[in-house]
């Protein structure tokens, strides 16, 4: 039983294929070489003229875990009538992503899976799994159909780690702890959110710069970044340390971001939703774009990767582990409500609804800053397409964002409708670049898979998981990327004409480096003394994910 996809135009950057016409053969969920015996081909799709890419991978999207569930609970109106109102909004926002985007910021687990696959995405990664809350995150992701999942475990604000650092623990101990957390939480990477800041907020600190100590531990964010990036590197985890920098959203924070790039002493780090960290203080309103400085530094610092966290106008909700900044931002909540939580001497979460408006100076400039970054960072292998779903915009607006990147006229028309003061502060129209299909395939497929360390995804080579998306080449890139003709998941046709035709369940990607398990002795006594659950219950067993007959764990090994 072999499926043949014939005559498609292949965009597969992992194999430097830029629109070549080739056939793809699928056998038992994998891409295989042309079979000797053509009689075994049971199904053929003629894809003449169609654009063929691997399934897209969202490397940063809040799809599971406590904070998203809080957002759903707090905002039932997003799903009820307000959703219709959002769709039919008469606001003259430059691009409420019509007609393809539901702009639903907090979809249920089921809808999350469906909306992703309908856009040709076959995997998404939850970037902020609180270790104490990891079981819930996996339960939610386990109930998310259609796509593969995975997550990054949050460290760097937990008291166990900060205690180790303040006690000057050796790097091996840190490494063992980091590896233990990866195993215990079934994660594929490590994230740090506002390094040290969530913890400092519990001691009533309201702001923390890169070299400012936590009042209790006398540990600085820089030290946290050094220790964690080194642990990730020495353990051989493919995914570089995922860093949400200090001072998110603060005017002038670009300096913190630039300094953060230097904090890992040249070891790889990924700076996430960098748009929110690229703000200067110029102009009458003391808020300006520092995209040029950030892009220049990204171009220079080859050990740094970044995703943008583009904002798009309309109603959404911001959900973050960064309680320090979310508590501060709660005064801008729209509608006016927010949930802030301190969680288990581990970290925290903050959920603040937000409405981005094109006539608001700051929001309009945020929009422009994101696009300036996309267009000014030269290497598409080191910059990734995200809206930090749902913080900048719901993931369903990706097709719209892709059009903004690929179509200069469309982009400039949108820009011309923005708040005039913001227009005066942006150089966006001077940026001529238009992303190519090949570059989009890098950002959303090959690059993302390489970054996370997914060996069998994001490409169309032999042996790859047959996650394949087929589009009709249309000048309207938003229409094109919103509604693929076909999506294959593990070789099965699951989407036809942008609608799910078959429900399937994806796998959970993990990384499990080896480590010295004697660390668990100390953890056991720490849990017994200070925490409120047993260490054995903290750990998520493999069969909790795989035993329901739907889930499956894939453990990815770093390629040497």
């Amino acid at each position: 039983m072999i499926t043949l996809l014939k005559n498609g135009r292949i965009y597969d950057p992992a194999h430097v294929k830029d629109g070549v016409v080739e056939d793809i053969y699928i056998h038992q969920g994998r891409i295989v070489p042309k079979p000797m015996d053509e009689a075994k081909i049971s199904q053929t799709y003629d894809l003449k003229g169609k654009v063929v890419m691997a399934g897209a991978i969202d490397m940063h999207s809040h799809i599971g875990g406590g904070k998203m569930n809080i957002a759903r609970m707090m905002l039932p109106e997003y799903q009820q009538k307000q959703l219709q109102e959002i769709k039919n909004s008469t606001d003259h926002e430059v691009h409420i992503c019509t007609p393809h985007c539901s702009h639903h910021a907090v979809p249920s687990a089921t809808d999350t899976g469906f909306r992703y696959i309908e856009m040709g995405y076959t995997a998404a990664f939850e970037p902020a799994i609180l270790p104490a809350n990891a079981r819930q995150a996996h339960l939610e992701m386990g109930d998310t159909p259609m796509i593969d999942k995975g997550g990054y475990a949050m460290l760097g604000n937990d008291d166990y780690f900060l205690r180790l650092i303040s006690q000057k623990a050796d790097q091996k101990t840190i490494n063992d702890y980091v590896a233990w957390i990866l195993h215990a939480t079934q994660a594929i990477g490590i994230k740090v959110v506002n390094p040290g800041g969530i913890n400092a907020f519990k001691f009533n600190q309201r702001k923390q710069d890169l070299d400012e100590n936590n009042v209790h531990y006398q540990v600085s964010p820089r030290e946290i970044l050094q220790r964690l990036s080194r642990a990730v590197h020495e353990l051989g985890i493919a995914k570089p340390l995922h860093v949400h920098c200090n001072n998110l959203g603060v005017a002038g924070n670009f300096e913190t971001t630039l300094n953060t790039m230097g904090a890992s002493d040249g070891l790889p780090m990924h700076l996430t939703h960098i748009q929110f960290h690229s703000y200067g203080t110029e102009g009458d309103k003391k808020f300006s774009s520092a995209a040029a400085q950030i892009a220049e530094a990204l171009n220079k610092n080859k050990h740094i990767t970044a995703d943008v966290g583009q904002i798009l106008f309309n109603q959404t909700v911001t959900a973050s582990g960064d309680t320090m900044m979310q508590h501060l931002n709660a005064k801008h909540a729209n509608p006016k409500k927010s949930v802030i939580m301190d969680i288990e001497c581990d970290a925290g979460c903050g959920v603040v609804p937000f409405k981005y408006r094109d006539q608001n100076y700051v929001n309009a400039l945020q929009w422009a800053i994101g696009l300036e970054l996309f267009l000014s960072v030269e290497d598409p292998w080191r910059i990734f397409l995200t809206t930090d779903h749902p913080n900048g915009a719901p993931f369903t607006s990706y097709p719209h964002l892709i059009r903004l990147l690929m179509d200069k006229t469309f982009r400039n028309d949108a820009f011309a409708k923005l708040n005039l003061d913001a227009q005066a502060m942006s150089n966006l129209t001077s940026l001529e670049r238009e992303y190519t299909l090949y570059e989009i395939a890098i950002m959303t497929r090959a690059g993302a898979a390489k970054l996370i360390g997914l060996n069998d995804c994001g490409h169309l080579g032999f042996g790859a998981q047959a996650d394949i998306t087929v589009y009709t080449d249309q000048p309207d890139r938003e229409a094109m990327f919103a509604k693929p003709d076909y999506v294959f998941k593990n070789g099965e046709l699951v989407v036809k004409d942008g609608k799910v035709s078959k429900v399937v369940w994806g796998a959970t990607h993990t990384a499990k480096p080896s480590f010295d398990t004697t660390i668990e002795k100390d953890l056991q006594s720490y849990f017994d003394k200070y925490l409120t659950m047993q260490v054995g219950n903290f750990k998520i067993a493999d069969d909790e994910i795989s035993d329901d007959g739907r889930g499956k764990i894939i453990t990815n090994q770093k390629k040497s």
Partner: protein
Amino acid sequence: MRSLMHLAEKTNATLDHMHSDSTVRNTLTMQNDGWLTTTLAEVKNRADVILAIGTDIATSHPRFFEKAVWNTESLFHKPTPEVIYLGVPAEKTKAGTSPNGTAPTVIDANADKLPEIINALNALLNNKLNNKKIKEESAGGVSVATLMALVNQLKAAKYAVIVWSASSFKFSHAELTIQSITQLINLLNESTRAAGLPLNSGDGDSSVNNTSTWLSGYPTRNRYVDGKPEYDTYHLSTDKLASSSDALLWVSTFNPHSPPATTAPTIVIGHPATKFERQPEVFIPVGVPGIDHIGLMFRLDSSITLPLKKLRDSQLPKLSDVIHQIEAALSSVEK
């Protein structure tokens, strides 16, 4: 709960939890204004003042003090917390006496007056922040001096934890009083740290609320209409629907709670010791999660999910297996 949700989707059923009168009060507060809350390990390691409003805590959560308050070791070497009860009968406050004999502060107040008293606390804190004086001498039967002392104590605390239980607020529109508590917490956080801890009512209410939310997008009190979830905390309550619905499926696995009185045909899937005033049309006894078979449960603070273990061999089936069989039987009938 996941299997129940699927069954509900298939049969256009309304879903409610036996304790959702309380859950909904908290949810409405959160939907109206939000809140700032904490979890048990933070209480254990950081709380220096614990204010229990209208609840003695120990009746519903008997090991709360032992596990999260009287610990002698904490990460930051904090003192044993000062425990304050507001609007709780003195005879129910024994659990708040520390192991070394320190008695809790008990602010005597009529529980029905809590709305007025909590609003007064907000006003006093606001006035304090704005340097205003107050003219009244008492609020809700409590002297302003006592309330002022409480405000000062909360404000001086490094990490005050305010505990309430929505089920213990027996007055109407309790959600407004809960909102007043959360506003007090927000005000405190302008200068110091403080957090709320809403207690649950048990029988898996936190688990049901969370699972429902990620599966349908809505917390409890929702229904499925032709595959689409709908949400209404007022109309979709068991009380409102018990008499008008055409069948009641009652599930209670942790405790032998009997179903509400209704004339509708009743199916009970529950604890084997369940007693009935009116024999239901169908009763399927099932095992208790965490005793007869494994399961998962959300803790009261909603952020922690714990595995439940199987402690004994039982002949009784598991709830989800029974529901799956019903679902399969329904499918074959449809065919």
